[in-house]
């Protein structure tokens, strides 16, 4: 056990990241009010049942879409398979709330579908024949088509390493193609698929924008509403407590299955990749249609819808202060990336050189920030600052610090830091895992101090990982909604908040322009990183 400045820095960083979780739990236990009665008699049942229906449906759909697409592009060659391999992750560029706007815009009365039918078939009332994708169904579709890529990426990686030999094994046992899939390939990829589904589950439970747009009362919207409409922070924290318990169960499940997935990766050396099976005729056509349908519905459809409205209502384009939004986004992205990278590097290195079990445990707990919905984080942060301000700052006779943290860029970046810390921490950690500890020891034996080893050996080694992490963080921050909405300074908008505000005022046409920009910028980031994401998974 080595206690040094690296150890204490890592300890402090991990502790700061854990503050919101501690706050939520502390608020729950400190309360003496009759909250059980309040919850039982009001919305708790509806919150929970809606959250569960949404969760299970999204899990089912993302499993079918993600695993199906991953299976096709991993094992078969068909027209467009090389294109679909990376383009299917473009759905990440469309956050669920923007998907929700597109869905509504297209299928609503006198919406885009109506306009298309009218121009094709003449003027009549098509509204009654156009299906309506709103409410719970709309939310399920929005979330599924936006989030399936988590399952797709992890399942695909697993298929690529584990199952190439397993297909031969299946053939050897006389299995049909279908039987090979569900008897051999699917069970072997189970840990990866479960890991992907756990991420989908966490995102679904944390989702705010889309469910709020469709007026579905879930635990997350419940938290937001109890704070915004009832000004009841304690009540919000109590609901947060339930959601956190639920999410932590998923988090543990995800962690457990990831450990197993790692086991599979270690054995990849024994598997040789083989030529993909070429599909012909109807089979090739079916595979193409399946993948194109997913690509079209998940990415092209919302993109075209937003583009169509931007072109149809060009005045919105001119009303929008694009330069400001780009600058604001850039400002947040740069500042947050910088903070996240620096502190995650320090924390990772501290863990590496200290090799201390307590610190490892604290780090593992602290990366749970990603599993905590943005709404909870933001509210827990406000609760903590309010408590800290009232009880400590005032006690010491200093002036209030609330303004420094709440409604400020500083506070916003701090909460982004907590929310996306696991992304940066894990990214750097996986980079470090590729570097044997004997590399550090070699450096010491060559006369390098710990600091020099960090700056001269580790940073250059992690350069590519850091670039990748910066792009991922940027992508997340561009799409992020609830934290920005709650904690941003007055009149400070991003593409996401501008789209949300317009949509919540029923001005979907106005929401189209910022949504379009958001999709385009996010797509650019994804295209830049897609090859890295795929290579990261050892293709």
């Amino acid at each position, binding site marked *: 056990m080595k206690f040094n400045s690296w150890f204490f820095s890592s300890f402090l960083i991990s502790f700061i990241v854990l503050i919101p979780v501690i706050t939520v739990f502390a608020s729950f236990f400190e309360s003496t009010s009759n909250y059980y009665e309040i919850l039982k008699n009001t919305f708790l049942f509806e919150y929970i049942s809606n959250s569960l229906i949404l969760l299970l449906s999204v899990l089912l759909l993302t499993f079918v879409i993600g695993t199906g697409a991953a299976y096709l592009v991993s094992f078969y060659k068909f027209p467009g398979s090389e294109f679909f391999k990376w383009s299917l992750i473009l759905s990440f560029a469309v956050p669920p709330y923007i998907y929700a706007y597109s869905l509504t815009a297209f299928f609503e009365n006198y919406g885009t579908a109506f306009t298309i039918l009218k121009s094709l078939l003449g003027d009549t009332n098509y509204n009654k024949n156009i299906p309506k994708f709103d409410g719970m169904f709309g939310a399920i579709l929005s979330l599924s088509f936006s989030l399936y890529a988590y399952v797709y990426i992890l399942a695909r990686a697993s298929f690529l390493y584990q199952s190439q030999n397993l297909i031969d094994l299946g053939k050897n046992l006389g299995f049909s193609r279908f039987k090979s899939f569900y008897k051999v390939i699917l069970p072997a990829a189970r840990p990866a698929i479960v890991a992907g589904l756990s991420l989908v589950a966490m995102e679904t439970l944390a989702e705010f924008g889309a469910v709020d747009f469709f007026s579905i009362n879930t635990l997350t919207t419940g938290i937001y509403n109890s704070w915004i409409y009832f000004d009841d922070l304690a009540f919000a924290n109590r609901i947060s407590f339930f959601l956190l318990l639920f999410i932590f169960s998923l988090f543990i499940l995800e962690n457990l299955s990831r450990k197993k997935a790692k086991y599979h990766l270690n054995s990849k050396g024994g598997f040789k990749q083989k030529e993909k099976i070429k599909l012909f005729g109807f089979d090739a056509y079916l595979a193409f249609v399946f993948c194109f349908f997913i690509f079209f519905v998940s990415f092209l459809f919302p993109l075209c819808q937003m583009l169509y409205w931007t072109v149809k209502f060009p005045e919105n384009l001119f009303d929008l202060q694009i330069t400001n939004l780009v600058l604001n986004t850039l400002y947040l992205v740069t500042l947050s990336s910088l903070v996240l990278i620096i502190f995650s590097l320090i924390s990772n290195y501290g863990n590496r050189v200290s090799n201390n079990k307590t610190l490892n445990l604290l780090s593992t707990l602290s990366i749970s920030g990603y599993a905590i919905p943005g709404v909870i984080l933001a509210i827990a942060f406000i609760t903590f600052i309010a408590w800290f301000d009232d009880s400590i700052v005032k006690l010491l006779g200093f002036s209030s610090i609330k303004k420094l943290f709440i409604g400020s860029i500083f506070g916003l970046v701090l909460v982004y830091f907590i929310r996306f810390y696991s992304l940066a921490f894990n990214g750097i950690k996986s980079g470090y895992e590729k570097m*044997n500890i*004997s*590399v550090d*020891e*070699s450096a*010491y*034996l*060559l*006369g390098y101090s710990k600091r020099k080893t960090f700056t001269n050996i580790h940073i250059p080694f992690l350069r590519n990982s850091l670039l990748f992490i910066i792009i991922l963080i940027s992508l997340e921050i561009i799409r992020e909604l609830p934290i920005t909405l709650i904690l941003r300074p007055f009149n400070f908008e991003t593409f996401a908040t501008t789209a949300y505000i317009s949509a919540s005022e029923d001005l979907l046409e106005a929401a189209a322009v910022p949504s379009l920009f958001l999709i385009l910028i996010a797509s650019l980031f994804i295209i830049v990183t897609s090859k890295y994401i795929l290579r990261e998974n050892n293709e």
Partner: protein
Amino acid sequence: MSNNFFEIKNVDFKVGNKVKVKNVSFSIEKEGDIICLLGPSGIGKTTILRTIAGLEKIDKGSIKLDGKTLSSEKINIEPENRNVSLAFQENSLFPHYTVKKNILLGSERNKGNKKKQLNIEELIDLLDISQILNKYPHEISAGEAQRASLARSLITKPDLLLLDEPLSNVDQSFKEEIQEKLKKILTNLKITTIIVTHDSYEAFYLGSKCGIILNQELKQFDDPYNVYHLPNSVEVVNFLNRGILIPAEVTSPKSLESKDLGTITGNFVKPFPIGSNVKLLIQPEDLQHDDKSNLKLHVVDRKFRGTNFIYTLRASSNTLIPVFVHSHHIHQHEIDEKFGIKRPIHIDHIVCF
């Protein structure tokens, strides 16, 4: 006060709280000497090297280099301040730098001290790594990585060089050549070296002294000749696997009687009282083939080892005895045939337990 260049005194070598090798003491008398530590895998040889390098701490005894204490219960000089170089068994090259850059990083350690500098071209040539200089560690074989790592360690011209199984990944065909080159370079540069290996031939060739580590102890630390011919315990005999122990009775200060081999004469390494029952070490080169001898044993196996055959013979008591025969010997014996042993049997050093 001892004048040894390097000295380990009563040290328990540990990983965490687990003792791997206990109460170890040995020394290297002169600067530039090479010693080898032999032992089976997982016995703690690497732990010893890591501790000497400063990567593990000790809480008992002391490690001294050139009169200066490197490690003791109270002192622990950090690895970067020891000028002790360790070449790891596994690839520990910096993965993001080319082989050349890796080696040059090693040369940075003693920059400004011209006496310490080594001619890099000569080293590259000696280790035959000129073809891989511009490659990255993941692009080269394990054997090449080991040689590159060795070059990086050598270039620092450390006060003490520690090599952990330095040639374990080098092709057998290339191994002897590298061993010769390595010995030459270490001797020429007078680099004091401790080599850990599980290959006894490598240890006997490279080391002026060999230490045998077995069952958490340094069992023997001696010249290679003595380690081979005069092993000091049954464990060392079994570990070296170069002979068998057969029951015999001491009949005089210079002879024994064995039920299987009859009378054996020679000089006892350690005296035993007449009449005592002992276990006598028989090594393959102790016995000679003689077709005319009336001492006949049954051939149960024959191994061709290039320059010689090793016959495994079954004695009347079912003991299996190995015997070397030059491979150019006029005829070969098939399995189940009878094989004559020259009598009287004389062994220069009689080792008994």
